[in-house]
């Protein structure tokens, strides 16, 4: 072993510890009983191991009695809401974005460049600067604290970036297949659904999954539109855990559950994302 190898190995180990330790620690405390979390010095592995927090969040076991009750229920509802909002928004957004990208990629119409520019420009603003009016407008139209309010927000947030990315993909598809489908008597919508969507399906599914991750991870919009309401998402319900006395082990469990989609996405895309350059623009926050 030469010096270079040793330096490299040390650097890799330090980097891995820095990246993974905070995540490991949340998992660690989530598998402990609350009194064990408070041990000095702390336990490096949960001993005794307990899955109580997870089972009570799912609802298999009774809620643990605490000063503040209803926390498990709030987390459970947050998970369900995040799924409802995340799934429906990403499906609607991808349906509209693929249609939009198809229109931009294949047809000529007046002010095409202008529409496209406006579409991209509309998402250049920092989210905090539009969040103030959102609350006021949404509360006038009774959308505050509703799933619909969240879904509308996310669909609108996701469409521009996905149209932009899809445009590149659609333009690279061979147009001959579409032309022959049209000659065979397929309408435009039929061509779109049976030819274009099918040819680009892998990319569309990937983008849909990333869109879901973006929504799952969003806090700003979720908090300002639906905090404390029956529609509040997981991120908001985690913030609710800090309102009173903090139960570390339960918070750790909620945080760990909140990280699961991120971990799944990195497993799916990690290998490819380190090779693709174009996806760099698809940062989780940029899309939201």
């Amino acid at each position, binding site marked *: 072993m030469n010096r270079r190898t040793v330096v*490299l190995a040390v650097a*890799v180990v330090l980097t*891995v510890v820095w*990246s*993974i330790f*905070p995540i490991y620690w949340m998992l660690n*405390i989530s598998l402990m009983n609350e009194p064990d979390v*408070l041990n*000095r*010095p*702390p336990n490096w592995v949960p001993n005794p191991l307990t899955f109580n927090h997870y089972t009570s969040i799912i609802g298999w076991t009774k809620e643990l009695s605490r000063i503040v009750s209803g926390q498990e229920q709030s987390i459970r509802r947050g998970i369900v809401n995040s799924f409802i909002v995340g799934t429906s928004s990403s499906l609607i957004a991808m349906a509209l974005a693929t*249609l*939009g990208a198809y*229109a*931009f990629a294949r*047809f*000529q119409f007046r002010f095409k460049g202008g*529409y496209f520019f*406006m*579409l991209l420009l509309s998402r250049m*603003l*920092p989210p*905090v*600067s*539009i969040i*103030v*009016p*959102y*609350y*006021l*407008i949404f509360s006038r139209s009774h959308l505050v604290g509703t799933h619909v309010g969240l879904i*509308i*927000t996310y669909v609108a*947030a996701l*469409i*521009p970036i996905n149209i932009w990315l899809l445009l590149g993909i659609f333009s690279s598809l061979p147009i001959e297949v579409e032309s022959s489908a049209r000659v065979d008597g397929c309408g*435009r919508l039929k061509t779109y659904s049976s030819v274009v969507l099918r040819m680009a399906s892998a990319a569309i599914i990937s983008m849909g999954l990333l869109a879901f991750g973006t929504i799952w*991870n969003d*806090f*700003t919009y979720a*908090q300002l539109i639906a905090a404390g309401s029956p529609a509040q998402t997981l*991120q908001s319900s*985690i*913030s609710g855990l800090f309102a009173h006395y903090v139960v*570390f082990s339960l*918070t750790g469990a909620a*945080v760990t559950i*909140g*990280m699961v989609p991120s*971990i799944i996405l*990195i497993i799916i895309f*990690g*290998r490819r*994302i*380190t*090779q693709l*350059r174009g996806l*760099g623009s698809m940062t989780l*926050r*940029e899309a939201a």
Partner: protein
Amino acid sequence: MVHLSDSKFALAIIVPIMVLELALTAYPILYSLYTSFTNMNIMTFSSGGTFIGLANYVEAMNDPLVIEAIGVSLLFTALVLSMSIPMAIGLGLLLNEDFPGRVIVRCIVLLPWFVSEFISGVTWRILTHEAYGTFNGILYSLRIIGQYQAWVKPDTALFMLSIAYVWHYAPFGAFFVLAALGSINPESYQAAKIDGAGAFRRFRSITLPHIRYSLIIVLILTTMYALTSFDIIYAMTEGGPGTLTQTLTWLLYREHFANKQYGYAAAVSFVLMILVIVIASVYFIILRRRRK
């Protein structure tokens, strides 16, 4: 089925999408601009408030809290940049090396970026907790500290906040650097080595020019994100202790949701937007000059 011409078919798709997008961006911005010229608050919300001209902006510019918040936002951004840019370069260079398990290490390093900013903040809040925090525990176990102590205290709060932000955000920069490093031809290093260039020289004259463009993008995006970040403050410090980590974003959130001063909050949000635009313009002017 009705027969539409190609251009009408396309417009039938595009126009509704544009309406949705503008309804949720242009309309809110204009509404917010209007609100910032009124005294709208929780009491006057239903009537729409009365027009008071630039009074909110004048008040904001004379508000010591706003001035302090601008300072905190800028300092936070500076702290984040000073840590995350060197880290992005370091991580990028490291992940570009060839070693067993490289793909897995790359995934692990990128993972914090995939974790939400809010959850990152909550995680670091627990890690740095003064009574039960993990850092206390580790340092105590290693006998570096004799007793548990507060890490997020007046003189360190903003620093801890930026460390948490860097944990979440530096992998994003590393990813860009890594992508740029991939485009360098390894032979140019060999050639430089043969010519007797040392490691530092090779970095300066081969690596840096290749990743410069990516670094500028990372610099601009990190600045924008750090200036407008909100989730991490909510998760970790809630603006405290006192107002020491109260950024402009947190101030406008407080004005809107705690004090219910909608007009004033809207004016502060435009102050923030102007700040972002000014800094972005400074970057672009410097870039232009450099190119000439």
